[in-house]
């Protein structure tokens, strides 16, 4: 096998066994790798009755075929399983250094089941696979855990670790690679915590990648890397990080303010934008493995209430989630909040959004001082967020900490009192910091049809509406007007296929904007030898999209669940999108027709599944 190793590590923490397992070669061709292959393996091996934190749940880490290639943007990996936050199928992507190291160690992925009787860590070294006790790391934050891992296994070892949030089963706990990169969304840190798995450590001896066409791949790799390095996007990201265009986003109405209640705040735009972060707190830039962009920030704040030592800095989502969303324009506070979330191991998007929901609920008396233990929740009060709320959530301390550790959707169901009106979710997942009303109405559609819930990285719709995509080979050569429904369903059908390809090959959405459709096909063929045409590749993307929907159907989701909070649809009250309605229902109806989705079940019809070679899967859902 080329590119992929063809082997995964199957770990049973209950019986403390580790086993190398071959994956059928056709699975790679049909489901690509990463998120797609994880979905396929769950379909085969998963227990649909097991709750996410039950011992019987599966936690699947999966590489794409490109992990290990010395090319910007292709060092990401996927984690997947039943989400503790949403209760249905989901996945999350992470950059950094773990995925290529896992490939170099001989594995395409790790599938973990069971529950250890004591805190443990999985150690993957070639010819030395083992489960170690990790009692001495239990209770530590991610930074200290990673530091001890490095002390024990050397600096070359790459790790995934959870913090206290994962140990305490916070529903949006994340998994952190080397302190700086996170499988952020949907709560897989809690799954690790439930299995008493504190960390996974991988260390290879040599960096070999066995390409199908080494010469062709090398030539293509150099050419793509040069394009990525020289692109305007890369230069802007390199200089000012992923928040580089926050200021511009405020002016288009893309950046949410005070729980998506406002779409414009000029003073905040300059205070929080990427260039301000560079000027005030940036110490270094950091990169994922082999990436020439280096969009990650290393920051230091020497004084004030939010002083932090030199370390990982916030990216756009964190800055907006702990800035504009909470009615704050204190950039130092976003850095501190982001650092705490990294250390506790919590998703910053859900954490910030859940606190924003709570602030609005408190303002409107759905939450009272009795609920908050006498703590007033006020917009912009970042001292309370940093010093009290985040620690309470991570440790599930008190009534309020316990409530907010559930995420906003379940917290709202718990307190009711009309607090559902303040939600900004789809399928139980909090929307990212891109407001569909200003950022693009197509986002409302793609948030709602995404298998894991409101997500901007499930597919490239955000970039398509922005004008950053041009794919004439598959018919995407037209311009989209962000604040309109025109052509959004048609574009979304392409977007879900492209998104499945991106997330299954585990490619960075910033870097891969420079890759043309023919180059994508060549990458798959030169690396993994899939021998695809454009049509084959797009079909694989569609197959993955459909399989993820079939999984959700088996978890009980239907067409009604392809919905989104009203807050994200109601006309904005200010800024660029003021008064413009989002025609959600008509976009969804059109998308369902184009994607041949059943309007009740929300899954593709039998003939469509048959045409993609999914007849067996169809028999599970259509009999």
């Amino acid at each position, binding site marked *: 096998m080329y590119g992929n190793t063809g082997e995964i590590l199957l770990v049973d923490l209950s019986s403390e066994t580790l086993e190398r397992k071959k994956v059928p070669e056709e699975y790679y061709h049909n489901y690509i790798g990463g998120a797609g292959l994880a979905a396929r393996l769950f379909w085969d091996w998963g227990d649909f009755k097991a709750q996410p934190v039950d011992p019987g749940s599966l936690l699947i880490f999966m590489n794409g075929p490109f992990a290990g290639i010395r090319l910007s943007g292709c060092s990401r990996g996927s984690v997947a399983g039943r989400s503790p936050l949403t209760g249905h199928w989901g996945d999350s992507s992470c950059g950094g250094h773990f995925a290529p190291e896992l490939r170099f160690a001989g594995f395409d992925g790790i599938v973990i089941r069971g529950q250890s009787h004591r805190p443990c860590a999985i150690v993957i070294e070639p010819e030395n696979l083992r489960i170690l006790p990790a009692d001495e790391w239990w209770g530590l934050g991610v930074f200290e855990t990673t530091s001890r891992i490095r002390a024990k296994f050397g600096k070359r070892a790459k790790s995934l670790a959870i913090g206290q949030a994962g140990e305490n089963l916070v529903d949006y706990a994340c998994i952190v690679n080397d302190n700086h990169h996170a499988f952020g969304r949907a709560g897989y840190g809690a799954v690790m915590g439930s299995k008493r798995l504190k960390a996974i450590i991988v260390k290879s001896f040599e960096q070999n990648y066995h390409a199908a066409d080494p010469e062709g791949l090398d030539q293509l790799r150099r050419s793509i890397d040069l394009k990525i390095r020289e692109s*305007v996007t890369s230069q802007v990201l390199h200089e000012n990080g992923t928040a580089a265009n926050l*200021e511009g986003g405020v002016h288009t109405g893309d950046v949410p303010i005070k729980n998506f209640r406002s779409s414009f705040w000029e003073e905040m735009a300059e205070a929080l934008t990427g260039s301000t972060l560079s000027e005030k707190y940036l110490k270094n830039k950091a990169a994922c493995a082999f990436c020439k962009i280096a969009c990650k920030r290393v920051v230091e704040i020497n004084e004030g209430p939010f002083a932090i030592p030199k370390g990982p800095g916030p990216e756009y989502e964190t800055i907006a989630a702990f800035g504009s969303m909470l009615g704050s324009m204190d950039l130092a506070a976003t850095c501190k909040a982001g650092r705490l979330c990294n250390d506790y191991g919590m998703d910053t998007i859900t954490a910030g959004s859940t606190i924003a929901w709570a602030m609005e609920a408190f303002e409107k008396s759905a939450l009272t001082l009795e609920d908050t233990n006498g703590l007033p929740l006020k917009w912009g009060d970042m001292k309370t967020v940093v010093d009290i709320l985040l620690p309470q959530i991570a440790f599930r301390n008190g009534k309020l900490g316990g409530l907010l550790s559930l995420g906003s959707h379940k917290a709202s169901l718990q307190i009711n009192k009309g607090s559902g009106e303040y939600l900004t979710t789809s399928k139980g997942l909090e929307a990212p910091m891109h407001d569909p009303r200003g950022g693009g109405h197509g986002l409302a559609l793609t948030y709602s049809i995404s298998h894991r819930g409101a997500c901007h990285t499930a597919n490239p719709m955000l970039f398509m509406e922005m*004008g950053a995509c*041009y794919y004439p080979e598959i018919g995407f050569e037209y311009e989209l007007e962000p604040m309109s429904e025109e052509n959004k369903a048609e574009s979304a059908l392409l977007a879900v296929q492209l998104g499945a390809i991106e997330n299954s090959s585990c490619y960075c959405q910033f870097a891969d904007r420079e890759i043309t459709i023919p180059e994508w096909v060549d990458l798959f063929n030169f690396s993994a030898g899939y021998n695809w045409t454009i049509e084959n590749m797009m079909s694989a993307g569609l197959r993955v999209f459909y399989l993820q929907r079939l999984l959700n159907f088996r978890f009980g989701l239907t067409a009604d669940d392809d919905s989104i909070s009203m807050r994200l649809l109601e006309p904005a009250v200010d800024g660029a999108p003021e008064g413009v309605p989002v025609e959600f229902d008509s976009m969804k109806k059109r998308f369902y027709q184009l994607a041949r989705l059943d309007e009740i079940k929300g899954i593709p019809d039998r003939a469509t599944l048959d045409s993609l070679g999914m007849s067996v899967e169809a028999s599970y859902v259509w009999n």
Partner: protein
Amino acid sequence: MEYWKDQHEPITAFLKLFEKAKEDPELSEGLKKVNQLIWFDYTEDGSDCSFHVDCRNGQVVAKQGKPSEEPDLIMSLSADDAHRSWSNKLNPVMAITRKKIRVKGSATGLLKLAPKLKKVALIYEQALNELNFLDKILK
């Protein structure tokens, strides 16, 4: 060229735009924040078809031609697309994606100007009016 009868017309219009932009307090401040020497290179439409703007050191100076110093940023495009762009009729992100605009150097400063493109378009229309280039105004 679709909009211009020769290579000098667009430069006259664009220099007028910057002359007027300097008089507007908001745009003037915005330009100063860019803090770069930018060469707008339209030489694909004629060797004299370019101008530069020096926004460094708290000033805004626009002149015809390539700057004598090495620019921080070069924006290369056609004079017609520049006209569409200043008229806010060209999505700059899309134009860059489709290689209609080629950018060399740091575009960070320009991001600060992007939110003000609507206002730039209004002032550009005034500039075209003053130059009696009424037939060039894009509606």
